[in-house]
């Protein structure tokens, strides 16, 4: 049932990660009406899935929590989760946008008490831990989730499991009759901040991701280190649950490679350097990290962080693009093969765990988005040339860390504000 919820003064922000939240807040706090649309069940995006971010090793609760508080406090922002933009028509200052709302099967009466999760036995792979563990099919995405409202997974709808969830709810919040809805609204400008996804590591076939249990990605390692993660913060091997004290970090896993991603993903060097600190934190003197790299790109002010890690005797640097990984059959240890280019020495190094510093691929790559934006050879969005008021922001436009994504989003917010101001002037 289409209803008009916005005027041409409104800015639509697509994507509820750190970039979209930032753009929405900047615009809203300048007095603009904002609609923030997120395709998953919660705001926070990939930032919420980090254990800590570089360079100050803050927990993401810090940055996200303050942003969530600002969103709750703002009367100018309306948030839609489980929502996708399916169509944008019109022109700068006057867009008509179609939203598809996927049912959550839980209404606003939810108090996040968790009784439904206790009642349901069915489980699904936990997307918030990159599938490393399973959660019940009635779940709160994570501790920082916004809205703090449970979700009933569509896989149990129509089964007795869903009825159990409904019966367990004391607040009448479980509504199994919810249907997909379409919403039409107006906006003056659109900010496209749909972020990134980790490159599919299985495509880097010589590294055996998916075949060898003890080859994981950097985003998965982040979940292992996190106390809210699948292992409660214990850095252990997927094959046998033993502590992974000797870890190989493989840089440019997918990035800077014509066979995979052409671009430098920019965050991976710092992510691995940071993760060597997690190793020290977990295992102290027993920690051993080895970074295999082409060159370390700790850009501008991150050089200090790199220097500190270099000074750590428990971190070894090997200048080499790892050629392949094989698995030792008895121990399931990954054995890395390649050539150390400093001396041209071949190696066959055994580790407890290999972490692929996985490249950053724009989420929009290969999908037809309903917006007139171009894309570069890596699939990142480039500005429209037709004068459209649809602006890319954050990792949808480039490989960026949190800090730079926020800068990019602030810039996009300003562009959108200018459009609103122009169209407002034209009307008065």
């Amino acid at each position: 049932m289409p209803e008009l919820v916005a005027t041409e003064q409104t800015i639509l922000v697509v994507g509820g990660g750190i970039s979209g939240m930032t753009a929405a807040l900047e615009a809203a706090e300048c007095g603009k009406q904002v609609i923030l649309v997120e395709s998953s069940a919660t705001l926070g995006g990939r930032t919420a899935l980090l254990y800590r971010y570089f360079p100050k090793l803050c927990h993401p609760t810090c940055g996200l929590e303050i942003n969530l508080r600002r969103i709750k406090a703002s009367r100018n922002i309306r948030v839609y989760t489980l929502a996708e933009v399916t169509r944008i028509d019109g022109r700068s200052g006057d867009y008509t946008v179609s939203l598809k709302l996927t049912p959550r099967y839980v209404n606003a009466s939810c108090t996040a008490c968790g009784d439904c999760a206790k009642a349901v036995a069915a489980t699904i792979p936990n997307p918030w831990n990159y599938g490393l563990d399973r959660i019940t099919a009635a779940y709160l995405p994570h501790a920082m989730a916004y809205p703090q409202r449970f979700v009933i997974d569509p896989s149990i709808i129509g089964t007795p499991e869903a009825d159990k969830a409904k019966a367990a709810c004391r607040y009448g919040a479980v509504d199994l009759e919810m249907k997909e809805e379409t919403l039409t609204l107006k906006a003056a400008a659109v900010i496209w901040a749909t972020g990134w996804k980790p490159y599919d590591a299985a495509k880097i076939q010589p590294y055996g991701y998916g075949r060898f249990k003890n080859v994981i990605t950097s985003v998965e390692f982040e979940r292992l280190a996190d106390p809210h993660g699948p292992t409660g913060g214990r850095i252990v091997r997927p094959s046998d649950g033993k502590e992974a004290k000797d870890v190989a970090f493989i840089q440019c896993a997918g990035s800077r490679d014509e066979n995979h991603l052409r671009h430098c993903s920019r965050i991976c060097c710092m992510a691995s350097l940071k993760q060597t600190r997690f190793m020290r934190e977990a295992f102290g003197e027993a920690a051993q990290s080895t970074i295999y790299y082409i060159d370390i790109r700790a850009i501008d002010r991150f050089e200090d962080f790199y220097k500190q890690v270099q000074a750590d005797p428990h971190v070894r640097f090997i200048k080499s693009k790892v050629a392949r990984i094989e698995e030792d059959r008895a121990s399931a240890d990954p054995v890395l093969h390649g050539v150390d280019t400093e001396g041209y020495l071949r190696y066959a190094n055994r580790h407890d765990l290999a972490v692929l510093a996985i490249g950053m691929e724009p989420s929009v790559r290969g999908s037809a988005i309903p917006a007139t934006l171009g894309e570069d050879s890596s699939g990142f969005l480039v500005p429209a040339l037709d004068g459209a008021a649809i602006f890319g922001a954050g990792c949808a436009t480039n490989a960026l860390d949190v800090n730079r994504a926020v800068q990019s989003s602030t810039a996009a917010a300003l562009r959108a504000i200018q459009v609103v101001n122009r169209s407002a002037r034209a009307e008065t």
Partner: protein
Amino acid sequence: MAKKEYAFYPGCSSQLRGSASNYLTSVNSMCEALDIKMTQIPDWNCCGASIGYAGSGELSRHVLNARNFALAETHLPGQDVVATCAACWLGARETKEKLDASSQLMAETNEALKEAGLRYQAKVGVRHMVEVLIEDIGYEGMAQPIVKPLEGVRIAGYVGCQTNRPFGIAGESFENPMYLDKLVETLGAEPLVKYEQKVTCCGGALAFSEPEKSQKQIKDIVESAYDHKADLIVTPCPLCQANVEIYQSEINKRHGTKLDMPVAYYSQLMAVAYGATPKAAGLDGHVIQPKKLQDIAVKVVPKK
């Protein structure tokens, strides 16, 4: 009429007294059971493998293959060229891709073919027998004629390089292709999916010129099969088959090992499963006897 028809390019190793003549025998049995009609391209010539790369230059290598294509287009119109040898397929497929992409190379090639009164029209498809099985027949289709499932036989699928890189079988991984495992499973045998030497180089032509190096490769391939308790190794490539089987005795002399691992073609497995006699499945062409297959092949089962 047969269900499927192809222009067959057997290649030199399948010829009488060639190292893979038993491959040809088993392919014939397999195709008969699957109702596939393979017609040899009349007067086919060498694909230019090995020697062609070493000495003769690019154009003559492409002309060699293009002549086979032109003959197929003339005598067997509308039929894909199908090679059973991995090297033939690789060379022929390379020629086809290069000619189809370069009008100049095409013109030069046809200039040369004109001397023989032939012309390559770029109509013909070039495929490996394995592609035909997977894409045209399908695993279900391959299961149809089975009368003797290869129950209890543990088989290491050794793919080698030539059906794998650079073209590969569509949809397969280069590092861990699964098609042989799926085929083995289809035939009722036990695929050793964890066999990690699937795509290791067998040494190829270096078996002659660098025996120590190639035998190191072969030793790894065979020993890993033992580690996984394989009864035999299966391969889609005549050179892999020859190298891996024949040199085991030399490795034994050199290293004091006791390698005795049979190496068979996928087509032999299929022929046996389809009820062929040991001879019709080409099981008489081995240096190391594929005992398990022979036992199954001599078993008498009631007709389906």
